[in-house]
């Protein structure tokens, strides 16, 4: 949690509402969605606020259509967004893959509720972490961020748009029922205080524009429909001009590039929030609403003399291996509390390779893990 700015307008907002404010601050002008608990407020507030700033809200016939619409809008130049929860997120998977392969910037919010299937619609959960990475077919690059406070709902939504634009990729924000519905007082920064990044547009003569040509960043400039750079966009694997190809010598560089553009910029993309980690003997790795409980538990543990440290993951995918790895060989143990059966802990174990002990707290009953649960474990560890 960063220091709360005090310059801006002070408001009491739900996490869901703060996301709308963040999106608008980042320049979002298009939202397509389909209502679902506990994400509905995002649609509702968007429908009220977007037209006032000259943007467009549309409620589509389902989540598949919503995902299609935000891709189309982005190709036509808008910064676009949708928001849903588990069932709708499952339905978006096919078109999400399209956005990955056609490199269309957009932001997809999943306010997690209990699953699988209709599950526990009004309860909190964090069980879509793996789905956010692997939900669509085929190897694809993706950026997934997790939020834990109303303020982060604002700040990270801005970041999500910025990353989407910078890397021409869909960015998924995982929120959860607690974060989405909790109201907190935050200060909305003034427009000038926010860094807003726009996609890089081609500036060569249109005849020279090669829409999917590699460069050192791995992110080609993006023409938008109507701006004179006509090109072909497809979900088929394509060559540098955008035309379908089956040639291995075109397939491999393409697929490698879209992965590389994310992986080579990991220092820009990986975000964590550390507290008391420097001398920590036990590292608590948490994200989303659970990070709040964890943070309290860590502070209380310190008061009781337990050398705990708090590592809040904001970027979940690509998994922040580069940040976490150094700690693994240093700490006595890692504790991963999650509202699922062990998804981030699975990744921690994967990169751990036997270096330290990894323990978990997994709560799946639809309620938030309490600070006490974590504290008790920290004291025992």
């Amino acid at each position, binding site marked *: 949690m960063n220091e709360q700015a005090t310059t801006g307008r002070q408001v009491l907002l739900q996490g869901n509402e703060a996301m709308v404010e963040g999106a608008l601050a980042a320049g979002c002008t298009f939202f397509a969605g389909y209502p679902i608990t506990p994400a509905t407020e995002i649609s509702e507030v968007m429908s009220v606020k977007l037209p006032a700033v000259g943007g467009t809200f549309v409620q589509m016939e389902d989540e598949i*259509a919503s995902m299609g*619409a935000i891709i*189309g*809008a982005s190709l*036509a130049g808008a910064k676009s967004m949708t928001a849903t929860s588990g069932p709708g997120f499952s339905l978006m998977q096919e078109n999400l893959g399209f956005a990955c392969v056609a490199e269309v910037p957009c932001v997809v919010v999943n306010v997690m509720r209990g699953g699988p299937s209709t599950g526990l619609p009004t309860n909190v959960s964090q069980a879509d972490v793996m789905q956010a990475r692997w939900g669509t077919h085929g190897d694809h690059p993706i950026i997934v961020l997790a939020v834990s406070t109303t303020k982060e709902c604002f700040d990270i939504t801005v970041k999500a748009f910025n990353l989407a634009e910078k890397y021409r990729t869909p960015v998924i924000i995982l929120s959860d029922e607690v974060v989405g519905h909790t109201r907190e007082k935050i200060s909305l920064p003034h427009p000038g205080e926010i860094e807003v990044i726009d996609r890089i547009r081609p500036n060569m003569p249109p005849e020279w524009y090669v829409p999917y040509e590699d460069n050192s960043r791995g992110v080609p400039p993006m023409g938008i*429909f109507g701006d004179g750079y*006509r090109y072909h*966009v497809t979900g088929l694997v394509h060559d540098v001009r955008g035309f379908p190809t089956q040639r291995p010598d075109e397939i491999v560089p393409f697929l490698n590039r879209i992965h590389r553009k994310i992986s080579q910029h990991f220092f820009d993309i990986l975000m964590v929030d550390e507290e008391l980690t420097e001398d920590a003997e036990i590292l608590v790795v948490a994200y989303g609403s659970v990070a709040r409980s964890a943070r309290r538990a860590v502070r209380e543990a310190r008061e009781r003399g337990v050398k705990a440290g708090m590592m809040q993951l904001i970027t979940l995918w690509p998994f922040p291996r580069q940040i976490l790895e150094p700690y693994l060989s240093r700490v006595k143990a890692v504790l991963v509390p999650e509202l699922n059966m062990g998804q981030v802990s699975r990744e921690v174990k994967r990169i751990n390779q036997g270096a330290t002990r990894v323990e978990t707290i997994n709560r799946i009953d639809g309620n938030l893990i309490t600070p006490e649960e974590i504290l008790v474990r920290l004291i025992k560890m």
Partner: protein
Amino acid sequence: MAEVTKLIHKYLRHDKKFPHVWCPGCGNGIVLGSLIRAIDKLGYEKDDVVLVSGIGCSGRLPVYVDFNTLHTTHGRALTFATGVKLANPNLHVIVIMGDGDATAIGGNHFIHAARRNLNLTAIIINNNIYGMTGGQYSPTTPYGALATTAMYRHIEHAFSIAELAVTAGAAMVARGTVYHANMLDKLIEKAIVKRGFSVVEVVSNCHTQYGRRNKLGGAVEMLRWQKDHAVRVEKTAEMGEEELADRFTIGVLVDRDLPIYTEEYKKIREAARAKMAAAR
């Protein structure tokens, strides 16, 4: 008539490997020609035209032509097109779909696009079959026909694409054939200029996957069939039930004026601005 091909070539993407992928005689090529001529007639800038398609043989159409082209996922072309149009209402957005694409997996988007009445043009190439995947029945495959998933005979009833569009609320609905290509030019042109959601169902031929299996012959025979069975809608008034039984109508079937979405939305923006201003 001279210079027609020259005109077409002005729009083709020559860096894309020609001849195109379609089978010899496939109606898709004829539709592409009509579409290009219609747009040329309207004098639109290539930059202002967005051609969106789904997946299928028909879905491959945009790749050949030098507009802003978008080849989406199966059945979802209209959803992408909705986003494009709403984000930039100045673009002329034309959507090409196959019968399966538009009315099987994409049926819901189709009726909702018609209901929503965005200013889009949907061209549906109805060849009564899933061409690309090899001849499985589609929602427009006639009762009793053969298909690779109906090897005994087809027992489902076909949709009328045009009627569905009318009931769902489209502003303009037309039907043409690839045989009546001149007329098709005009229907497409009219659909593009129409303000509101316009649909052109194009009766086309997939002799490879549908014609052969159903003993309807090759491309030539299937075009001849179109010629023999199509009736101009203007003529139907004079014709008896019996005469019409085996036939289908072509021409503009419905043309009505309804408030269009983007215009309506402008008013919403005004209302929103007024409300926000009042709140401040």
